[in-house]
């Protein structure tokens, strides 16, 4: 059970959040120009990092805002949370 620092509300229990998986995946501008493999890469493939991982969370039982988090998948330490549209902080695990 993590404690997650919502950028809008402050630290809250993990039960108030849902995780939306890997962050910073942009939807391809022109999907018709992509091969099946390239499209499948966007839809299905996610990095499974050991160490620092950037992911999306939503404070679903709180302010209902989506935000990003940088979490070390080995220690589960959450190094930073930041709002959508903000650049990820430079971090190393």
């Amino acid at each position, binding site marked *: 059970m993590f404690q997650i620092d919502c950028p809008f509300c402050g630290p809250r229990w993990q039960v108030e959040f*849902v995780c*939306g998986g890997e962050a910073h995946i942009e939807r391809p501008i022109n999907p018709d120009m992509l091969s*099946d493999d390239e499209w499948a890469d*966007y839809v299905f493939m996610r990095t499974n990092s050991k160490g620092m991982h950037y992911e999306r969370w939503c404070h*679903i039982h709180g302010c209902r805002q989506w935000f990003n988090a940088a979490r070390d998948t080995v220690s589960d330490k959450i190094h930073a949370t930041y709002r959508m549209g903000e650049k990820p902080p430079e971090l190393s695990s």
Partner: protein
Amino acid sequence: MKQQPYRLPTGGRIERNRPISFVYDGRPYDGFIGDTLASALLANGVRLVGRSFKYHRPRGVMTAGSNEPNAIVQLETGAYAEPNTRATQVELYDGLTAASQNCWPSVGFDFGAWTSHFSDLFPAGFYYKTFMWPRSAWMRYEYFIRRMAGLGSSPRVPDPDRYEKMHTHCDVLVVGSGPAGLSAALAAGRAGARVILVDEQNEVGGSLLEETIAIGNDPAMSWANKVREELIALPETRVLLRSTAYGYYDHNLVMISQRVSDHLGLSERSTDIPRQILWKVRAKEVVLATGAHERPLIFPDNDRPGVMLASAARSYVNRYAVKPGSSAIFFTNNDSAYKAALDMHAAGMRVSGIIDVRSDISGSWAQSVRDAGIPIFENQVVVATHGKSGLKGVSVMKLNPSGDGVDGVTQRVHGDVLCMSGGWSPVVHLFSQSRGKLNFDVAKNCFVPGTPVQASITVGACNGSFLLSDCLREGFLAGTEAAKNAGFEAIVPDLPDVQEPELTEERAVWETPNRLPSGRGGKRFIDFQNDVTSRDVELAAREGYLSVEHLKRYTTLGMGTDQGKLSNVNGLAVFSRCTGHDIPALGVTTFRPPYTPVTFGVIGGRDVDHLFDPVRKTPMHEWHVSSGALFEDVGQWKRPHYYPQDGEDMAAAVKRECEAVGSTVGIADASTLGKLDLRGPDVKKLLNWVYTNAWNKLETDRCRYGLMLGENGMVFDDGVTTKLSDEHYLMSTTSGGAGHVHQWLEEWLQCEWLDMKVWVTNITTQYAVAQISGPRARDLLAELTSDIDVSPQAFPFMSMRCGTVAGISARVFRISFSGELSYEINVPANKGMALWRALMSCGQKYNITPYGTESMHVLRAEKGFIIVGEETDGTVTPMDLGMDWIVSKAKKNFLGKRSLSRSDIIKSDRKQLVGLLTDNPDYVLGVGAQIVSQINESPPMPMEGHVTSSYYGPRVGRSIAMALLSGGLKRQGETVTVWDRGNIVRAKVSSPVFYDRDGDRMNA
């Protein structure tokens, strides 16, 4: 008051002025407040407390704490019954009733004991090897094995107790209130930190509860109680007793199970006080002062009743004033047995001698023992134990010069208690759960905590520091550091003076050398609870097991409530000898929560019965109830399933309801349908993104049906959206789908299309919806409204009108899920009941008939309308549903579009939606029945599809079904074979629309 033959006349922490009685295995006994069930049984001379798991050997109390393998009892009966409790941890209360487990049919006469004589039948992996093949044999043996395995029995009636949960935060959480934990809590508490001190026992003190050494000028427990009083007086500090920190999770979350009233007699317990409380503590800093467990030694028949840990024997004498026997023998590889021997000697027990594997024993402990006249058998080992159901004595022999065998003659030593000590293992369970790695300390022969991963500090015996003065010093330092880390100014308290002898070195001996190889002579137990012997571990090694995790599962070593407490390091040591790998290289098995068993009651807390999940009711719910509706759960919603009349069964009620809708008018409560209010300049743009069809040309007050896809191209919701104005739309979703769709829209708006201006509000419960459906629906509506022109020209199909219905301001949607002329009347939720009553009373002349979800489903299936989640299962595209018409060719982009041209999606043999008409028109197929391309005598058969919906259709007068069939869109007219619960059924493939194909009725 009956005599307690083994109770010492003075001493101990029991309350002699509070005698109580209890019943064990049907017999009455006496004890005192302050006893555990185990100490009271020993005081009464009860030595046989159970039978072992596999061999059903007689067993006695072996420990005085959570590591007890043998004295596992069923506490109380009926609703209060609790299996698998450890008698060593059960506080005695007046009227307590307990029964030994694991001894079917009785503890004295034991049917299972025959297995001891056939022990070759039960080697490691016995269950796997014998019972995995043939399967049928397992079924036969299972009954007996389960009975003999004695896991207690769970109560069959609801739990009468109340449980609570507490969530809290603190600066410093200290686990364990022994000398290290007390001093850590004191140092942190004095600094002003919010401290929680937690201990599983009924008093603070830990090892001090049986300690005879003074701290400063005070007896150890006086010091402990002074500290406790100081802590309680601090405003921010809490001391939780009878509370087990059983799990250490991420971000310094520690779970604690507090037994609030378990120690009270059943009649003293009050419903005002919960039985137990589950604490979820988030701590800035955690100090682990969890102590250490003494290890047994491995020698032949080391499980005979009377064999116990030296520390346990000391605890019974000092803390409970109970002699564990009449005369004691000690067997040890370290100094701690000497302490125990001296205390037992001082209490007036006969001590026959200390058998010590070490030679040239010096140091002040040995000196004190010699001064007391207790013989020491240096460089010797126990090679056999004697006695039938209880220990009578042991045989000892000298070790040979190389120390790997025995020499000379055996010598008999008499005694009815054998107190053993194989050294100490720090209780690293919580540290390990917090993901900290363990290091093997070769000098101390134990695993000690390595570098912590979370904000925690380990101190005292948990850290491998076994001297009292070290415990106090480490505790003060850790408490100070933890307080500082949590942001407080702290100073290290002054260390009290402690006079204690230095310890001499332990000799690493696990399985003591013997006359005979391990397969012969008495069994040498490593794990007493699971009956794992050194021979089992040898066998596993011979069979090629190398990983300790595999060893554990193959031999069951360290399973059950033991969880490695008593057996872990000893098992590893034997495994290490057999495999030739040293212990650090082998590593340890993972310590998993809970540290000791936790009741389901406290995990459930108040989230049981009607509080388990919220129940959602529509504004018209009470009407449905009083009209005799039977309800169906749809998500959290209660929806009327059907309204039986005069003893109708479901089929009859549904037939009547459907026929009414087809001939006059029916009314259904559609309030649960999801409703999302969309506002802003970019709503149209959003709709074009999330639906497959085009939304540019939708006019105000018109409705349009849409399918929503995931990016993988699969249908995940459908519904009708209505344009209220240029910047205001109302989207409907499936019942129970509103939350999911809302979340989906928000995710895209917040994460991908940050510049799109749309505000989404879930207004599902703000409106009540009455759906009137049938040829007389228009007449009924016309009577109740004066400001809506209901003529077909003025109010066409797929449009919306605002106005007043029955005097209530309403939005009326002319949409249809039944295939008949149909209106959905939306009014504010608090007006729902008034609307419903008005429709019912005005509709009387048309014999208006309420219908439930079952009829709704039948009606829509006759019409070939899909239900997301029935006709779709997350692998179905719009094309699979034959709904190409709803997928815009003109739109360049929408969610999921690109996936619709992936190679797998355009295959012609995909499962596609068809109708099925059984040759026998009265036969209703089962949902899930398989369409097969070949009939075999029994499954498996090659499958090519399955039935998704199936009903008897009253309006079409025969059975109908929808199915997903491989290549189905091109197989109209074909006859297929359906394997339906053993029946072989022939059916013709048809269009899934069975009723009013041209839509004349709903467009009327």
